[in-house]
């Protein structure tokens, strides 16, 4: 049987992969940092444009068997691909100050990772999904360990690698078991019904557990702080935004699209994951003294809020089609708000300490006085992550989650989310207070590279805009 391949549907993935190749060649021929990064940036931008262009056209699909397709290009996949491309662009801009990594490999690996993310949004079966997710993650093992001459970096990379490989194996096992019980791998056909066997339950839980690693949900979170802290700060930003987005998208695709018949199994598991993740993340974050570790733990906690709307699936009320849509769009909306805020937070850290690691929180004393704009951005991002005005984007993100939970009848989970927001504020406000503390001594003001400043500015403007007009995000979701 010959198959025609719809190359238009694959265009964003081609563009992303092409970017990776082009970056590698630029590094060979020109061998200048700026040129390599510029090519990567242009490639990411082209990928985003391509994804949006394809998304504006008709829905397409390719690699089909009679009743389902493995690669789907629709509005949703375009949104995901564009988000990944733009996040990569942002991270490349933030990398302008990262001097202790070989630029060619760095940009090449980032572009490879972007390719995985772009393909992820189009995945139509479990295997494509897992392969795309792995393509997204695999380059990150190297990127985390890429910093020259640092032990933390290598340690973080090894932890990340080992844990993540186990996670992928677990997900694959789950997918294989699902194939064993049902004979299907396509999400669309899985959704039509699963046999009521004990093995089905085991398979669902295994798939879910493996994917939970990717979003760093408790109890599968242990890799995150070490990996974030060891990595160059822009890569930590990528881990906490793009990589986490990948995990969330994979969970949504696998659980809501594919395993819809097993939601009564996945629902309670997700609710437990969400509660554990936000509570443990917040409590441990309270005691952190290093900036990037604090952000890492806070992003663990944020994963809990992201998963929370899906926890409503545990109740029959939460599994009606209508409630399902509400929960999914709440998750997507929260993720978008979160990704913006997190990128701004990491961007501000890069801007305050260009080319350095995150350092101790105490090192930031008075930073908002020496760098008023960058400091204000960091505070805005942190306050947004805490969910309070003036971080209106974060406030509306929390509102979306609580609303969707009450819609699904899971009031207790809404209360848990609400109380966690209080714990969260305790550490966010501590950092904000340090930023506005007295300036220790007049040190030389670090010069902020223009690319970092521009990226930070764009993200901040985006945060302010969606803060006042959150409907934009809600419409997208």
């Amino acid at each position, binding site marked *: 049987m010959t198959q025609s391949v719809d190359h238009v549907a694959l265009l964003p993935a081609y563009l992303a992969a092409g970017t990776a190749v082009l970056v590698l060649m630029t590094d060979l021929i020109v061998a200048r940092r700026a040129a390599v990064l510029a090519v990567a940036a242009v490639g990411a931008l082209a990928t985003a444009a391509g994804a949006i262009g394809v998304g504006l056209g008709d829905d397409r699909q390719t690699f089909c068997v009679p009743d389902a397709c493995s690669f789907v290009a629709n509005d949703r996949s375009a949104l995901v691909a564009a988000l990944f491309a733009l996040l990569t662009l942002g991270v490349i801009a933030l990398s302008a100050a990262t001097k202790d990594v070989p630029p060619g490999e760095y940009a090449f690996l980032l572009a490879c990772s972007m390719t995985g993310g772009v393909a992820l949004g189009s995945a139509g079966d479990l295997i494509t999904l897992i392969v795309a997710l792995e393509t997204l993650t695999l380059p990150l093992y190297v990127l985390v360990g890429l910093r020259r001459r640092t032990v933390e970096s290598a340690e973080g990379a090894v932890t990340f690698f080992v844990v993540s490989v186990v996670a992928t194996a677990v997900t694959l096992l789950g997918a294989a078991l699902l194939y064993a019980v049902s004979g299907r791998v396509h999400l669309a056909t899985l959704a039509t019904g699963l046999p009521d066997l004990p093995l089905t339950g085991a398979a669902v839980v295994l798939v879910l557990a493996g994917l939970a690693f990717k979003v760093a949900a408790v109890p599968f979170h242990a890799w995150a702080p070490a990996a974030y802290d060891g990595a160059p700060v822009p890569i930590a930003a990528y881990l906490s935004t793009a990589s986490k987005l990948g995990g969330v998208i994979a969970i949504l695709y696998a659980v809501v699209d594919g395993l819809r018949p097993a939601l009564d199994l996945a629902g309670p598991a997700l609710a437990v994951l969400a509660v554990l993740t936000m509570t443990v993340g917040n409590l441990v974050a309270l005691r952190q003294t290093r900036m990037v570790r604090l952000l890492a733990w806070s992003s663990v906690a944020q994963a809990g809020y992201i998963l929370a709307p899906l926890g409503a699936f545990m109740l029959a009320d939460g599994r009606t089609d209508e409630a399902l849509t509400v929960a999914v769009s709440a998750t997507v909306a929260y993720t978008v708000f979160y990704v913006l805020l997190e990128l701004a937070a990491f961007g501000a850290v890069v801007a305050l300490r260009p080319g350095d690691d995150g350092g101790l929180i105490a090192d930031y004393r008075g930073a908002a006085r020496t760098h008023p704009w960058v400091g204000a951005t960091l505070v805005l991002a942190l306050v947004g992550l805490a969910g*309070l005005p003036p971080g209106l984007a974060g406030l509306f993100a929390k509102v979306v989650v609580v609303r969707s939970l009450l819609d699904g009848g899971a*009031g207790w989970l809404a209360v848990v989310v*609400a109380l966690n*927001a*209080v714990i969260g*504020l*305790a550490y966010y406000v501590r950092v904000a207070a340090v930023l506005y503390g007295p300036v220790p001594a007049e040190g030389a003001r670090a010069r902020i590279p223009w690319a970092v400043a521009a990226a930070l500015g764009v993200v901040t403007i985006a945060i302010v805009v969606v803060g006042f007009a959150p409907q934009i995000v809600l419409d997208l979701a």
Partner: protein
Amino acid sequence: MRWLLVAVLAVPAAGALLAAFLPTKAGQVAGTVAAAATLVLSVPLYRDSWFSFGSAAVRPWHEVDLSWVPGLDLRFHLGVDGVSYPLVVLTALLTLLCCAFTLWRAPAPGRGHTLVALLLVIEVGILGTFLALDLVLFFVFFEVVLLPMYAVIAVWGGDDRAHAARKFVLYTLFGSVLLLVGVFTVVVSAGTADIVALTGGSELSRGTQIMAFILLAIAFAVKSPLWPLHTWLPDAHTQAPTVGSVILAGVLLKMGTYGLIRVAVGVAPEGARWAAPALGILAVAAIVVGSLVCLAQTEIKRLIAYSSVGHMGFVLLGIATLTATGIQAALIGNVAHGVITGLLFFLAGAIKERAHTGELAQLGGLREQSPWLAGILAFAAIASLGLPGLAGFWGEAFAVVASLDRGGPLWTTLAAVAAVGGALTAAYFLRLLRRVTHGPAVGALEPPGLARAEVAAWAPLVLLALIVGLLPALVLGMAGDPVGALVEAVR
């Protein structure tokens, strides 16, 4: 007149931006001008008639209703009526006085323009809360206040400011996240966030109403604060700079009691009836505990802070009765407490600044050293303890009367105990006066006289305490009809 509603929020917001970005002195002046403009704009919101279109229990004099975030049922819906109007004007007035006061003397470590900007942001939040006629909008404005107030305490506060500020922000955030859950409990089951449509609670089942009322009542009880959720208040009030304490006690606490009347009781009346006895008992406990704790205080600001617990107890007792008299008492009690306690905190700040201590044991002889200061302090204390003819009287007396009117052994007992609490209030204020104004001079007061700025800041409050005391109809008149309609809808 609709633009006036928006302007009342937009002007202080713009003023805050100007104050933040202009240099110190110019910023302070710009901020103060904005605060003055807000007051000028807020006064003509008044409308001398019971606006009688329709049969809704909330009939605003003016209304703005714009779509904002349809996906969250959030509309930019503002309105003002007889319940909110006095509080709006009070907020505008106190903010102006505080900004002007800062112009004269910014507390350490200076940077007065930032302080003015934060005060104006707080004003936006408080005014927005009073004006919001959409539950979600109400919540958003309720949250706006938190961090600016945190910053005011944490930067310009006393020695233990970091701890007090953190306690304030975490405690009150605890309240407002419950408000979030409560608001959406209502919104999700009613399908609308419009306070006008929701008042009366006809669209909600009894179970939902009780659930919602519990959440909302705890949220507002933290803000008010109601004993035993008050523990953030003494620290925050004591550590905050003078202007911070004035705003906190004067109007910020009113967001809680106003929310209880407009949102909790209005939207979930079934729940309110169910919880009224518990609320009444807690309110009376607050009165008694607050007064007893005050009797044992040795620091002037802390004493005044704890007196708020007792006074807010009277306000909550009035609300708990769910009668027209009781809610009227709560409203006038709110306004009176705002005026008098605002004044008391100004005075406490002035005394502490002159004597460099707030310990009652190290104060004394104020009457001889600074007769004017002593006189105004005596006036404020006597107004606060509820002498007839001054503002504090009406709220406390009518809360007790309303409780008696409810009848039955429980409410009669509550009324009696509350009356005893009122007597205790007199006891601790007289103790305060005896320690501070009378007796031999312990330390030196420098300077003994009053600055012109101080007189300017205090005079309006002194006058208001007199006027509201002599003519309570000023507040009660305009609140009568809306409260009647609310009680009718709640019944």
